[in-house]
């Protein structure tokens, strides 16, 4: 320690300005807090904005006042299917009535459809004006005063756009009668194809990478490649899907390979193409999530299995997979909820924006919820914006349910070692 003796201690002077240090500490803390608050405000505003547009007063003008269509004093809403049919018969020319019957026999239509027909063909509501939820609540008196409801055919209703009929009805170009059933069914079909294709492939790839693959250059490339694919913009997958599934594999994706000749099928722009495109999109996510779940299974479990002479696959199948499954499922659900909300790739592969028929098989033309939202959002009229808001609420409800399931799975099964 002799070296200390030949050194003079330097001037030890601290001008410690604690007030300043603590002050700047407090200021920055406020800044950090504020950014968090801004994030939360953004989320709340986003939701409120949607809610604000999803309900409110609507001023309708009817060609025929529904009040005049009472049968024995019973209003339309409470009439039976037969009564509604008679209303149709009385108000339409027999030619028009018979044409409806030819399109789809009345015997096959349920009450809801006939009810919608009455409004579509006889009442013919037109939306004159709409109000936001906020205005409807705060200015209800002015709104009521501004609409001459005593006039025949003029009606003012408080409409919650995301209602039961909205879920039940097919797509329609008339905002009064438009619904999301076609879109929901399209989304469900598409996502089923996606899961069927991506889940087994993704889990197997994860098993390969975690349990089988040696640490050599080719497998490192695969890993890097998967990470890169996860970052590729979704629209690129759309372009790929357009080139491969819609165009090259058209005989398969349009179903002609299986002898299905659906006249509505537009050359490969089908549920099958959409489902497979989304499968490519979520595959890297499923692989990465499954890898993590598999990695979390302790090595001691594998050793125990190998120790009694099990083969590799026996070990994987009976020990690794069952223990990793909750994690794999959680990851898959999260990936799938990403796919459900995807719009861009489906626009590119040519999802139909206007389609009036429910999809019936994987080779049908289709639309999905996000596509429907996109289409309605792009329309200039307010009432379509409101429909878009209603469809967004449906979409968010579906996603919330899925996410809640994922979180439930994660909490229910997490940490058992």
């Amino acid at each position, binding site marked *: *320690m002799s*070296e*200390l003796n030949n*050194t003079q*201690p*330097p*001037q*030890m*002077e*601290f*001008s*410690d*300005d*604690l007030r300043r*240090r*603590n002050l700047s500490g407090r200021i920055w803390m406020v800044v950090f807090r504020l950014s968090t608050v801004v994030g939360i405000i953004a989320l709340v505003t986003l939701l409120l904005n949607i809610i604000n547009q999803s309900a409110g007063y609507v001023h309708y003008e009817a060609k025929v006042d529904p009040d005049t269509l009472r049968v024995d004093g019973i209003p339309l809403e409470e009439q039976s299917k037969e009564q509604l049919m008679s209303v149709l018969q009385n108000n339409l020319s027999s030619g028009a009535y018979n044409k409806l019957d030819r399109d789809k026999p009345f015997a096959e239509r349920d009450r809801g459809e006939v009810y919608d027909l009455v409004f579509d063909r006889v009442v013919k509501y037109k939306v004159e004006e709409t109000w936001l939820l906020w205005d409807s609540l705060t200015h209800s008196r002015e709104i009521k005063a501004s609409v001459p409801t005593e006039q025949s055919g003029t009606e003012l209703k408080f409409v919650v756009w995301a209602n039961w009929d909205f879920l039940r009805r097919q797509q329609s170009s008339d905002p009064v009668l438009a619904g999301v059933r076609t879109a929901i069914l399209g989304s469900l079909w598409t996502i089923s194809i996606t899961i069927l294709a991506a889940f087994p492939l993704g889990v197997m790839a994860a098993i390969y990478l975690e349990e089988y693959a040696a640490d050599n250059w080719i497998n490192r490339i695969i890993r890097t490649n998967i990470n890169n694919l996860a970052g590729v913009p979704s629209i690129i997958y759309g372009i790929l899907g357009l080139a491969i599934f819609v165009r090259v594999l058209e005989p398969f994706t349009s179903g002609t390979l299986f002898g299905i000749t659906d006249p509505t099928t537009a050359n490969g722009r089908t549920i099958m193409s959409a489902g497979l495109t989304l499968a490519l999109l979520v595959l890297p996510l499923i692989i990465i999530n499954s890898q993590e779940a598999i990695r979390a299974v302790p090595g001691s479990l594998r050793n125990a299995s190998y120790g009694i002479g099990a083969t590799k696959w026996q070990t994987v199948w009976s020990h690794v997979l069952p223990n990793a499954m909750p994690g794999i499922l959680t990851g898959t659900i999260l990936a799938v909820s990403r796919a459900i909300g995807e719009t861009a790739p489906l626009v590119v592969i040519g999802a139909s924006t206007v389609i009036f028929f429910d999809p019936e098989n994987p080779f049908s033309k289709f639309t999905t919820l996000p596509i429907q939202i996109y289409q309605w959002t792009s329309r200039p009229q307010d009432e379509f914006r409101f429909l878009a808001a209603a469809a967004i609420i449906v979409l968010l409800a579906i996603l919330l349910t899925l996410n809640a399931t994922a979180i439930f799975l994660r909490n229910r099964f997490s940490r058992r070692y």
Partner: protein
Amino acid sequence: MVQPQSKTENSHYVLEAKNLEIYYGSFKAVTDVHMNVERNKITAIIGPSGCGKSTLLRAFNRMNELVSDSSIRGEILFQGQDLYASNVDPVVVRHRIGMVFQKPNPFPKSIYENIAWGARIHGYKGKMDELVEYSLRQAALWDEVKDKLNQSGLALSGGQQQRLCIARALAVQPEVILMDEPASALDPIATLKIEELMQELKKNYTIVIVTHNMQQAARASDYTAMMMLSKDGERSGTVIEFDETKHIFTNPKDKRTEDYVTGRFG
């Protein structure tokens, strides 16, 4: 057990713990501690693992409160002032009572920056180069690193890293240095260097060291606090005996201390 001296003499002690209890939430980790730390001496805290030695040490410069919902009861006086009084700034406490940790934890910065950082945040006025050299010399590290001050602190060996951490603590001129098993991650030669260094440093500083190495305590310290779980079945640690080191190791008053220092414990 040595009782604290009368209050009038409190400037004599640098640190005094009185009736100290430390809690994590509702769990009482340390109970009923009385001990005094004398200026320019080395005070060792020994005892079996899990008896709260580190917890007690960290209470001396309020590092404990970085763990959420930890709290203390009783008093710790630093030169007669209550460390936990509401008007005391923990930042100042840690400036004046520095700490060296169990595992060397240099910042991922250059050796030079490791030393300069603390001085800079406290508004050091003098020449930084001088301070860096002086601190490194004090920590007996200067000759080994003077040619590579711009290298990362992480590039040093474990023992050098720990001396770098000591130099870093010295650079802000604390009055007390708390050392939490500073040599436990080091090899015997590096350990010896640290012990020599402590002897050198106590001329200017007061040192409190936690160690589970009894030889180290016996060799290096002037006073020793013996900690144990207070009672069988309870999980709170306490200081069962506090005395000059030579008494603790040659003539302990408490039977448990005797068992422990002679190796008959547990």
